[in-house]
């Protein structure tokens, strides 16, 4: 078994128009910049994929990564908890112009909905958002005298994930707080595509230290020395697709 894919364009080639795509990361930490940019390259060259529903904690920052994906007009709807950042201009402008739809979800509920999608739990109850605008229209049930909000699982067609080390079976580790939503999204997508900074042989990751077992991963692409969103934005980087031959 070998889940590696030889290059970034091949890794993202199968994502169709209209797909729901989970993208890992919390702000820039754990954001799979190179996978996102490969998807932009494909769109610039072919016009696809478009009309994506993207699930991420944020809405991008500056003009690279998720912000660039949105700026290209590839995203129809964003499901996130915090569409603000140091430089949220791309999302803000498109949202206020009515060019992108937003489903705002409290962060812990977002995490739990994704985890539920991966774990086969179609719905659960949480105290979060009870009595607020974000619970409007949702089913309420009392347990032990306290009201809770029913929330549904969240699944995706694809997940784009950034890991630190990965083996050819798809076992993964992460780097520090870059873990965040990534392991959850691996479990909740039909096809999980992972960029790994270090590609290793099976057995090279101690079984005790595996954070995402390979069963949750379909494709692994080696991206040594990945770019960091924060560093790119501090350099005012802009990504608008690779120069096409």
């Amino acid at each position, binding site marked *: *078994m070998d889940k590696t894919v030889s290059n970034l364009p091949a890794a993202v080639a199968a994502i169709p128009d209209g797909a729901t795509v989970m993208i890992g990361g919390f702000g820039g930490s754990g954001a799979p910049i190179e996978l996102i940019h490969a998807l932009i390259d494909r769109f610039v060259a072919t016009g696809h994929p478009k009309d994506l529903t993207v699930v991420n904690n944020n809405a991008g920052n500056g003009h690279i990564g998720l912000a660039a994906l949105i700026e290209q007009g590839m995203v129809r709807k964003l499901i996130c908890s915090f569409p603000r950042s140091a430089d949220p201009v791309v999302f803000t402008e498109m949202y206020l112009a009515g060019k992108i739809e937003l489903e705002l979800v409290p962060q812990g509920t977002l995490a739990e909905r994704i985890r539920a999608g*991966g774990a086969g739990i179609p719905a659960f109850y949480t105290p979060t958002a009870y009595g607020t605008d974000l619970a409007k229209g949702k089913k309420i049930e009392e347990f032990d005298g306290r009201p809770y909000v029913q929330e549904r699982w969240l699944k995706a067609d694809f997940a784009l994930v950034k890991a630190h080390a990965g083996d*050819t079976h798809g076992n993964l580790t992460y780097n520090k707080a870059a873990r965040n939503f990534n392991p959850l999204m691996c479990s909740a997508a039909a096809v999980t595509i992972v960029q790994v900074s270090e590609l290793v042989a099976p*057995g090279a990751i101690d*079984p*005790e230290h595996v954070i995402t077992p*390979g*069963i*949750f991963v379909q494709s692994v692409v080696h991206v040594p020395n990945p770019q960091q969103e924060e560093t790119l934005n501090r350099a005012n980087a802009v990504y608008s697709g690779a120069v096409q031959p």
Partner: protein
Amino acid sequence: MTQKLSNAQIAWRAAQDIADGAYVNLGIGFPEMVAQYQPAGRQAIFHTENGILDFGESPAKGSEDWDLINAGKKAVTLNPGAAFFHHADSFAMVRGGHLDVAILGAYQVAQNGDLANWSTGPKGVPAVGGAMDLVHGAKRVAVITDHVTKDGKPKLLESCTLPLTGVGCVTRIYTSLAVIDIQDSRFVLIEKLPSLSLADLQAVTGAELLVKAPFADLIVPEL
């Protein structure tokens, strides 16, 4: 009594349908035998409910590590690429549809895919383990079983009489006499022992066997 497959031969037949790289959970006991008969060149990855992915063969007697066991509490070893995880993550794999195949034993299977394999009734101490979870979530839930009970009664029925493990969950049954799929709540014959007539097979099956396409001979090596 007609010729029938041994347990090893049933396990061998079930193993032929497991693809290379498939994630597989084998129920405690008889189903564990399936792991021994993987076709050459194919390597399934075995999951055990108690938190291991990609465990390997039994260790030599005397070198067991009792913190490295499978769901049947038997000592195992690890293959390169193994991973440990806790019980909630383990059953997220099960319930979340991440396993390609679960192979379980059965007391009874109904033609709509209902399975009874955890309780023979109200007597004694009931125990369910992970069976009720395993029948939901795996992309394919297969059963391996003798075609009939020890006293010759059908185990494949119109509806189960024993307490259910799951509703409409089984998709394929490997028996000592045949391979039978469940399609649209009916038993569909896929393979049968060539030595056995369709009428004879029907006689020991508790619900009608459909023949939707030419069935094949169930050919299994001596083991």
